[in-house]
């Protein structure tokens, strides 16, 4: 089983190598006339070499490792996947559906992620938060938030 840092080293190596090769394509120029890829080449090479060092150094550690599993031991990463999924769907629906509706439903679902609150409490809190945010950000601060399907009803 690999130490978690070895996975980080592999990822860093891939990113560093990609940046290095791309920088060459962008044009590194010369010392007297550095091109657009000059500094990113330096950074990419540095990242590649450092990733290799990290990979090698973490491979020499003597303790037994459980690989990536030890990072998430005792935690519930499925909550993150759920929250992230909600946010992605929210973002897709924000403009067509509108801020008020999407935010209300997002708040209802998020308040239920960790807390065991009643639906009555969650619904009223979500409504209060959504309306308060609309008043503060749209009315007072002048932030432009999408109206979506509510556009015909929101006259102010």
């Amino acid at each position, binding site marked *: 089983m690999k130490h978690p840092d070895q996975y980080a080293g592999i990822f860093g190596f891939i990113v560093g190598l990609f940046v290095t090769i791309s920088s060459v394509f962008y044009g590194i120029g010369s*010392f007297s006339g550095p091109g657009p890829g000059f500094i990113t080449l330096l950074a990419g090479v540095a990242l590649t070499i*450092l990733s290799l060092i990290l990979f090698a150094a973490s491979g020499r550690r003597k303790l037994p490792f459980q690989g990536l599993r030890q990072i*998430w031991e005792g935690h519930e*990463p499925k909550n993150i996947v759920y929250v992230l999924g909600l946010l992605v769907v929210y973002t897709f629906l924000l403009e067509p559906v509108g801020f008020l509706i999407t935010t209300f439903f997002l708040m209802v679902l998020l308040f239920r992620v960790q807390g065991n609150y009643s639906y009555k409490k969650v619904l009223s809190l979500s409504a209060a938060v959504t309306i308060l945010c609309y008043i503060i950000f749209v009315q007072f601060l002048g932030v432009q938030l999408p109206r979506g399907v509510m556009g015909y009803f929101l006259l102010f």
Partner: protein
Amino acid sequence: METLDYLLYGFRVILHPMPLFFCFIGVLIGTLVGVLPGLGPVAAISLLLPFTFHVSPLVSVIMLAGIYYGAMYGGSITAILVNIPGEAASVVTCLDGYQMALKGRAGAALGISAIGSFIAGTAGLIGLSFLAPPLAATALKFGPPEYFAIMILGLTILVFLAGGSMIKALMMASLGLIIGNVGMDIITAQPRFTFGTTILLDGVGLVPLVMGLFGISEVFLNVEQSLKTQEILKTDLKGLLPNLQEWKESIFPIARGSVLGFFLGILPGGGAVISSFVSYGIERKLSRHPEEFGKGAIAGVAGPESANNSATAGAFIPLLTLGIPSNAVTAILLGALMMYDTPAGPRMVSQHPDIFWGIICSMYIGNIMLLVLNLPLIRLWVKILEIPYPILFPLIILFCLIGVYSLDSRTSEIFLMLIFGVVGYMMKKFKFDGAPLILAVVLGPQMDKSLRQSLLMSGGSPQIFFDSPICLGVLAVVALLLFVLPFLPRVTRFRKSLGEESEQL
């Protein structure tokens, strides 16, 4: 005497309703953020950054700066009452502050923390007022090679002092340089790493980047943990003023903390966290009763709390005079100043004196407001500690979403923030520090420009970096920090202790 004239000018600029109101809002939010564990000043400033574009640059920076030093005050409250640091610089306050609370002296601990912070914060500001203008005048003589060298030094010190592995910190700095140079090249207009999209042509926005890396990722980290209810110590908060003996034991630690914190705050990578640790170590060494440290010694609260507040004033020196941030918070403030079209640096004193002196003077007033807020309102802050995290985190997410969308009314910015949220979360799980990355992102374009200008000036010869005595000196320090000091056993132990303390957060 000239400095006093400038200070009077600064007070004239900010003694108006709007700047005062936003200063108050900033320190109030800062204290709140400091009280709430899991939400530090970096995340709070990131969350509020987009909303500051609706007001003037002066007022915006006053508010954001208020959040920074306000958080230092608030962090001590949770450290003393709950034994959990509200933010990183209050870690050492837990050691003796909580013990004092267990002995029924919570009020005295909170009181000395607030008063010591006020004294040290004010002392730091006096240092800032007198040191900043001559340093800015000296910096006007710097050219591209000097700027490039100083930026490398800033990044190197931050990497050196980052808790944990230096290799990882250097990787973050390299990645930050890459991210900072995404978008159109300023000289040739060649798109770099835009993947054929128009979204990234202007580069990676600072707001989605910091909100994702520090705000959303923090929420992810907390959401995956099974919640434990925070037990707030049920203690009578009587007597917020220390008694005479406690004053005697605190006055010299406060004085030492003020000076130490200020100078450590100037150093890139120094800042409030390092200064609080160093202050604690010094007070324990100098104390006549070192055995009492860890069991409720008031000097163990007075010194570090003073040091971390003084450090926040010191941190503004490289930011305002050189345009080089010394930590993640000032890196974001620098980015904000650039976005307001009032870049920090040696010309700020002459081109934007109202903003330069306005910020400094607002911090004097902010410190007074904090003293007034903290002492009488401690019971209110304790109540806020009781807000359950399942209620808090959806609100944090909502602020992030509204904040990012409000910039350009584009959902692509939200997607970018979510991507960086995942990146930030993975960074924290694999123990990569975000501070070198954010500093490198903010400095990246300037470093690119300075490096290329230097090489153009010298016709391609790197000798230009060794011709200037300032450059030579700075690069020598960089070499020392990267290739000599990390291999000394004492330094290795010191860096390891920093890493262990930061992992406890």
